[in-house]
């Protein structure tokens, strides 16, 4: 009896292996497919990573027009420079600041007034706390990001003020992150791209390959061989899993080399990639079966994929969305892959990862069973 079962398992493994070999050969002989499959997620990471790396520790451009030109004003300029948040460009004192801003596309010019040193002296001498020395900030309110810049400048000036007044600050903020360590946007983003890339490839891989084979009648031929539905779905899953592992490795490698990301690589990564593949290959099989025609199957796959891509927290945290969309996100299977991968890779929070794994695991199981039940290897296409 045991021998019988083992024999059966060997036969199944043999069949699945044969399918995987054929799939992989077909894959790597189609060079453009290989390129897009591996390069697309990497391009996403490079593009978004570059955009947001600047955000994380951005150095702002700051134009300063010093109309005072005294040791005091020079000291102020030097103090701002020392904050290391700005790349400073001097504006010639003779220039009209407004026109200069327009002509040179500057969204913020700080103007040190003519009487800067004098009023500073006056103020220090009189110990008058009600009046302050003013600094003109000429800014373009329509410009993207200028508010952040002003905010940073205010912060820097506050520091300078405080130092000049010689008094210790009353309140010192001490940020404590909810995560064990601080993370950058790219570290939030990479797990999201992994989850999404694996989803898209699995879903479309399953839909496209199966619809084509069905249409060409290859499936009808397979139906006259010992291969079973279960073998066929498992072959699809394993094949997509191999590609997913490969593509994930490439994504991580690029992220490490280019952005020096700080992400945990642990067994959860494998678990979530596997569950991601299982879920969406299964879904793809179901779509192929239900839609019957290749075009409608990929249209249906599109319809499922897009909301998932944008609403399940791939590109930005779900918490940024309105309440009802957040609720909606929680029914999307990809949400749990995203959350789970981030819990595992960013926060190293194993309990949270386990919780997500259970959700997506349950989904994968349902889809897989359903897929096995309704997939036909028969010629009974009607």
């Amino acid at each position: 009896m045991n021998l019988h079962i083992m024999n059966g398992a060997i036969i199944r493994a043999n069949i699945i292996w044969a399918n995987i070999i054929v799939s992989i050969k077909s894959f790597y002989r189609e060079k453009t497919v290989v390129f897009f499959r591996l390069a697309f997620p990497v391009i996403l990471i490079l593009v978004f990573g570059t955009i947001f790396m600047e955000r994380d520790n951005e150095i702002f451009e700051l134009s300063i027009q010093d109309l005072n030109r005294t040791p005091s004003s020079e000291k102020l300029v030097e103090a701002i420079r020392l904050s290391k948040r700005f790349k400073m460009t001097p504006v010639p004192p003779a220039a009209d600041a407004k026109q200069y801003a327009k002509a040179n596309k500057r969204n913020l010019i700080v103007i040190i007034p003519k009487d800067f040193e004098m009023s500073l002296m006056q103020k220090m001498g009189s110990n008058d706390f009600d009046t302050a020395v003013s600094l003109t900030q000429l800014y373009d309110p329509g410009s993207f990001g200028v508010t952040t810049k002003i905010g940073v400048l205010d912060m820097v000036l506050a520091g300078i003020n405080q130092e000049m007044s010689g008094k210790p600050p009353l309140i010192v903020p001490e940020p404590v992150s909810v995560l064990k360590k601080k993370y950058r946007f790219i570290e939030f983003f990479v797990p999201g791209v992994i989850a999404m890339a694996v989803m898209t490839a699995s879903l479309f891989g399953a839909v496209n390959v199966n619809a084509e084979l069905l249409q060409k009648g290859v499936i009808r031929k397979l139906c006259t061989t010992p291969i079973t539905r279960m073998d066929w779905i498992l072959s699809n899953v394993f094949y997509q899993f191999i590609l997913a592992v490969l593509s994930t490795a490439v994504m991580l490698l690029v992220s490490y080399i280019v952005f020096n990301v700080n992400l945990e690589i642990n067994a959860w990564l494998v678990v979530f990639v596997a569950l991601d593949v299982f879920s969406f290959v299964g879904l793809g099989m179901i779509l192929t079966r239900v839609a019957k025609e290749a075009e409608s199957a990929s249209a249906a796959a599109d319809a499922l994929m897009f909301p998932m891509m944008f609403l399940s927290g791939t590109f930005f945290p779900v918490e940024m969305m309105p309440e009802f969309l957040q609720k909606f996100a929680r029914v999307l299977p990809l949400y749990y892959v995203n959350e789970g991968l981030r819990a595992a890779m960013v926060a190293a929070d194993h309990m949270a990862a386990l919780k997500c794994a259970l959700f997506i695991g349950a989904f994968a199981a349902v889809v897989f069973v359903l897929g096995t039940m309704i997939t036909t290897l028969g010629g009974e296409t009607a």
Partner: protein
Amino acid sequence: MTLNSEYAIEVHNLTKRYKGLSAVDNISFTVKRGEVFALLGPNGAGKTTTVEIIDTIRKPTSGKVTLLGMDVTRKKYNIIPRIGVLPQGFSSFDRITVKETLQYYSRLFCCRKTDIDGLIAIVNLKDKVKVQYKNLSGGLKQRLGIAVALVNDPEIVFLDEPTTGLDPRARRAVWDVLLGLKKKGKTLFLTTHYMEEAELLADTVAIVKRGKITAMGSPGELIESNADYLVVMLKSVDENVFDMVRKMGFAPVYDSHGDIRVRLDRTDDVRRLLNAIEAGGASFTGLDVRKPNLEEVFLKLTDETLVEGSAGIKEAQ
């Protein structure tokens, strides 16, 4: 269990319905081991539906089909290792080479020692082993399909239109392969539109029309029992002849050479026809009176008249 079944295939009252259409309508027949059986019929007759039920691809609506003593609907996975199938319009993985394709299908049947090089030799694809499927010509694809159907050294081989779409030389090459299998004692079940193919290969021919078998027997028997009429061929440059013949109540057709062909049920009619043409002052340059050939018997059995498609027109389609 299988030893006592003298028949390779037993079909009993088989019916397959598609939304009110009976694609296969209550047919019965048997095929002996080692026999070559051909289903012959026009497009849409129900050939593919019939084979695909027998070779386990589709499920019957009613009736019983037994292969090697086993019920096809209940013993699919016991039957499959013992049969080989070339489905209509065989197709395979585009990027996989001839040899790899054979290795793949052989693996699916597991643990069998398939003589892949031997198979390649049988279908004469030796110099194409490294060519990917999508780069093969139609005839070569079909030959690969036949080789694939043989990877498990099956006892029964099903071939659904093995030569449709092939040029005469490629068709002959396929016939040679099939004759070789026949010599080896394999049971062959094939479908075809071509009477000459059935005549050359088959021990038994069943002619199907609209889901029913209208005649069955060896090619010789079929002609014997259905050639109860004469075919008159008239070579003529005179266009009036065609009209004259028609006005006499016969159904003349032009064949592919532009000759007039008429089916006559009685010997007397020949004389009547010739007299009428002579009386009408028309002339003809050639005359041939003969028994119908297999093609014409087939057409008679499937269409009842020669009107819709003479052999020539059918070839051209």
